[in-house]
């Protein structure tokens, strides 16, 4: 039992995707499949810590499960700090401790339109979501991003579902994104669709506000800093619908918008 939940698996492949904007490296990391029973759901995440990491970085790092099949587990990450810098140095065959699948996941309601709102690396869980959804024709992706599209697995998504994107190259581009998100949330609220979202906090806050405004059925995935990933440290909490602290790693990362307070 325990063997499936915290395992040292091998790196199968690691590569930087596309030509990144300066300072932003987006990387696809393929690992041996950790042989999870009974499996995983899109929106869940894993904690990752290379076996060779010395103790100067004590925590593992959380990443959305981008995709997985019987032979491999794929995550997508961006180099933003000390941990991801070192993850990027992994080589094929290196061993990585993985614990998961962790947390909650996006629902897949039958016969309802689903809007996927992804901001930057928030695109990761939607790769698996699209691939494991039985009615991709009901799905639409809206993608807000800074590095150019070719840095993301966008093409593989646009082949399968309706897509739309806005690139943010300067702060002045942000209002357009907010306006479009608001429109889309309104549209899906009106047609009783489900809204799923993953991305940076300001992006999620925009969606949360819009979902409140239009009474939309929305599921938001949060990316708080985590130490344990399993509910033990209480370092990752967010405020639930009643304003109480709740663990993002276990009660989330995917929350119903009504179960969150994202004010401020």
């Amino acid at each position, binding site marked *: 039992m*325990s063997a499936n*939940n915290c395992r040292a698996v091998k790196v199968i492949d690691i590569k930087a995707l596309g030509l990144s904007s300066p300072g932003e490296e987006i990387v696809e990391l393929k690992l041996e499949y950790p042989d999870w029973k009974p499996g995983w759901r899109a929106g869940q995440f894993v904690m990752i810590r290379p076996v060779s990491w010395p103790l100067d970085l*004590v925590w593992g790092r959380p990443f959305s499960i981008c995709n997985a099949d019987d032979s491999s587990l794929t995550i997508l990450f961006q180099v933003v700090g000390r941990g991801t810098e070192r993850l990027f140095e992994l080589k094929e065959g290196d061993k990585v401790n993985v614990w998961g699948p962790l947390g909650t996941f996006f629902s897949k309601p039958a016969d309802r339109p689903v809007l996927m709102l992804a901001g930057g690396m928030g695109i990761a869980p939607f790769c698996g979501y699209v691939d494991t959804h039985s009615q991709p024709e009901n799905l639409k992706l809206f993608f807000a991003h800074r590095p150019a599209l070719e840095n993301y697995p966008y093409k593989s998504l646009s082949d399968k579902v309706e897509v739309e994107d806005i690139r943010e190259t300067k702060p002045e581009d942000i209002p357009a994104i907010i306006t479009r998100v608001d429109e889309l949330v309104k549209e899906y609220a009106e047609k009783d669709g489900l809204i799923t979202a993953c991305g940076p906090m300001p992006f999620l806050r925009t969606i949360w506000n819009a979902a409140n405004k239009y009474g939309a059925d929305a599921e938001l995935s949060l990316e708080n*800093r985590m*130490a344990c990933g*399993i509910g*033990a*440290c*209480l370092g990752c909490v967010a405020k639930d619908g009643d304003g109480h602290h709740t663990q993002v790693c276990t009660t989330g990362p995917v929350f119903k918008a009504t179960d969150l307070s994202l004010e401020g």
Partner: protein
Amino acid sequence: MDMSVDFAGLKLKNPILTASGTFGFGLEFKRFGDLESLGGIVVKGLSLKPREGNPMPRIAETPCGMLNAIGIQNPGVEVFLTKKLPKLPWKTLPVLVNLYATDAPEFGELAGVLSGEEGVAALEVNVSCPNVKEGGIAFGQDPRQITKVAEAVKKNAGNKPVIIKLSPNVTDIATCAKAAEDGGADGISLINTLSGMAVDIERRTPRLANVIGGLSGPAVKPVALRCVYQAVNAVKIPVIGLGGITTAEDAAEFLLVGATAVQIGTGNFISPDTAFNVAKELPKVLERVKAESLAEFTGSLKLP
């Protein structure tokens, strides 16, 4: 090698416990190992009433360590007793409860609530949490208050062993250890976290909303080992050592300076099976260093 120890009357299968606040209520770790392979677990700090804890952010990574300012978020002792404890295999796994309160009478009251609970093996009293502004820091650093808290808890604890958990943020740890012994404590545990801080030079803000937090992890191990060594030599009651333990070798270091048992804290975040691995590896490490028995090795440090 026989790994069992007696800690203040408490029978432990082995000297490996988990540290409060780093192992949730134990249940979170069931999927990563066999809880009953541990000597025992110490659950998250509990108070009489539920606590929301401090605002976010509450954790930050530092060189070989981490800072936390969780602020003893917990569902309150009642919820623990009704919802969590029944799910734990407490008949075969000693469950130690970590107590948090803001004054001595409140500590006494909390001990009273727990004293009758069959599933509670012992009380560990946190007089040292440096995160909570309304009192923690003050009485954990004042020997007279430590004695008062120990007395208050002991009076209400029935036959549960009472362990006082000490703060390292003091000028003289030996005096604090003695103060706990004077108050009637059956044992002490140390160290709690070191008071520390981290800042973000881009945003020009503290990395913790609480500004100051508690440092733990491998970085603090030398300080922890020194404190445990000084405490062991100051009191007759048994000592639980902790601070920065991530391997069985680390655990052995604390035993060598005289700790009867140890706790794994931040190590549980490096990987959720750390405590299980330490429990499994410890006998092998003791054999490798040619210990005749756990008792023979414990406290066998040779001074120059």
